[in-house]
């Protein structure tokens, strides 16, 4: 698959995020090459969502930089990334297809990006082709989440920022989504995901947040290369 924009590395250095005067994320570094995934781990309140929201451009970094090392370095990361957060970003009054069509136009660039599926094809891929004409308000939580995940497919963006993407998904849908993520990585995409449950990301780097030494010392957040661990 050929894409117009294909960065080679995603490098973050010394990321710090403050909320309400408290430093939630302190000194996070990571370095991903094309096709690599980063799984962000940590207990509740460790700063996973905060880090991901900061990467997506919703929170300001108080220190540090994150950027693609190759390609168009000046383009803001926000326009090169997909963000799946706790909220699905769907309008209950609109049908699944209308929601997807809207986001395809809203998030897509002027030129139709190669590698992007049409909204119908994306719905078919996630197995919801039959309910495309249903208002999203009538769908179950898992179906809504799948429609939200289909948004990843309707416009091509190299970085996927996923905050608990598998919430409410059934086992089959989780497997399908693992397959979708694998395809994205095979095409040279990046994935940064926060999760409590295994996502099926093979050979992912791990970033553990909120691991603080007992006294005084600098809190550490280490990116460790692992093979197929419990979380991979």
């Amino acid at each position: 698959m050929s894409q117009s924009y294909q960065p080679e590395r995603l490098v973050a250095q010394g990321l710090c995020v403050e909320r309400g005067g408290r430093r939630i994320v302190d000194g996070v570094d990571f370095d991903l090459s094309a096709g690599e995934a980063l799984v962000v781990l940590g207990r509740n309140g460790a700063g996973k969502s905060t880090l991901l929201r900061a990467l997506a451009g919703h929170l300001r970094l108080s220190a540090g930089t994150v950027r693609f090392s190759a390609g168009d370095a000046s383009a803001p990361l926000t326009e090169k990334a997909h963000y799946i957060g706790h909220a699905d970003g769907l309008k209950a009054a609109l049908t699944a297809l209308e929601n997807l069509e809207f986001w395809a136009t809203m998030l897509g660039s002027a030129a139709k990006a190669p590698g992007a599926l049409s909204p119908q094809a994306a719905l078919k891929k996630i197995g919801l082709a039959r309910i495309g004409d249903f208002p999203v308000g009538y769908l179950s939580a898992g179906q809504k989440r799948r429609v939200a995940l289909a948004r990843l497919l309707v416009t091509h963006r190299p970085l996927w920022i996923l905050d608990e993407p598998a919430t409410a998904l059934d086992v089959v849908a989780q497997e399908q989504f693992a397959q979708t993520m694998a395809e994205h990585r095979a095409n040279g995409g990046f994935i940064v995901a926060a999760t409590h449950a295994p996502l099926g990301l093979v050979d992912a780097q791990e970033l553990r947040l909120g691991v603080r030494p007992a006294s005084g010392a600098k809190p550490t957040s280490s990116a460790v290369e692992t093979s197929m661990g419990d979380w991979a």
Partner: protein
Amino acid sequence: MTSALIALFWRELRIANRIGGGGAMGVVFFLILVSMTPFAIGPDLNLLARIGPAILWIAALLATLLGLDRLFQADAEDGSLDLFIMSPAPLELVVLVKCAAHWCLTALPLVAAAPLLGLTLALDPPALAGVAASLLAGTPALTLLGAIGAALTAGLRRGGLLMAVLILPLTVPVLIFGVSSAAAASGGTVPFHTPFLILCALSLMTIAGAPFAAAAALRSREA
């Protein structure tokens, strides 16, 4: 980017159409407010005709602000706002398009209804035309000023009243020149176009400035 903004405009209209309420409810609110006034003031036709434009303007002001608190709040709650920020389309233009859709849905019906309701307040035909024209020229300023308040209170659960408290004082110039141009239409010492042109200028100023203020408020939202 243009196609994204057009898609956004139609999405707003479509959602309002599906959910219902929106525009029609504003007009009903307007109708009730205006038709209550003669009961409060009494059936003095001369008095009603004199204060009629002011009543219509105050009612329009309140009816416009009525639905505005949800302008960004609904998008903030369901995560759409996060995605707007990630769109290639500048957030300022997203704000402007959302305001344009909201204006078409709420203010335009008010402009259409105002002459009819003016009849119940014993306004003469030039005053009816004056009220409609001044509302048409002045309501964009109300919507856009309201958008600043809506953006500031987007993250608050019950921000509606706070928004009104923040924004109503800022609408005073619009109210003054709106009422004076409506009054000037039915005679008086001031020619109609003098206050009317200032009213148009106020609307143009807010169209140029308010999207930046609202977008800045939305970006700095801590959520």
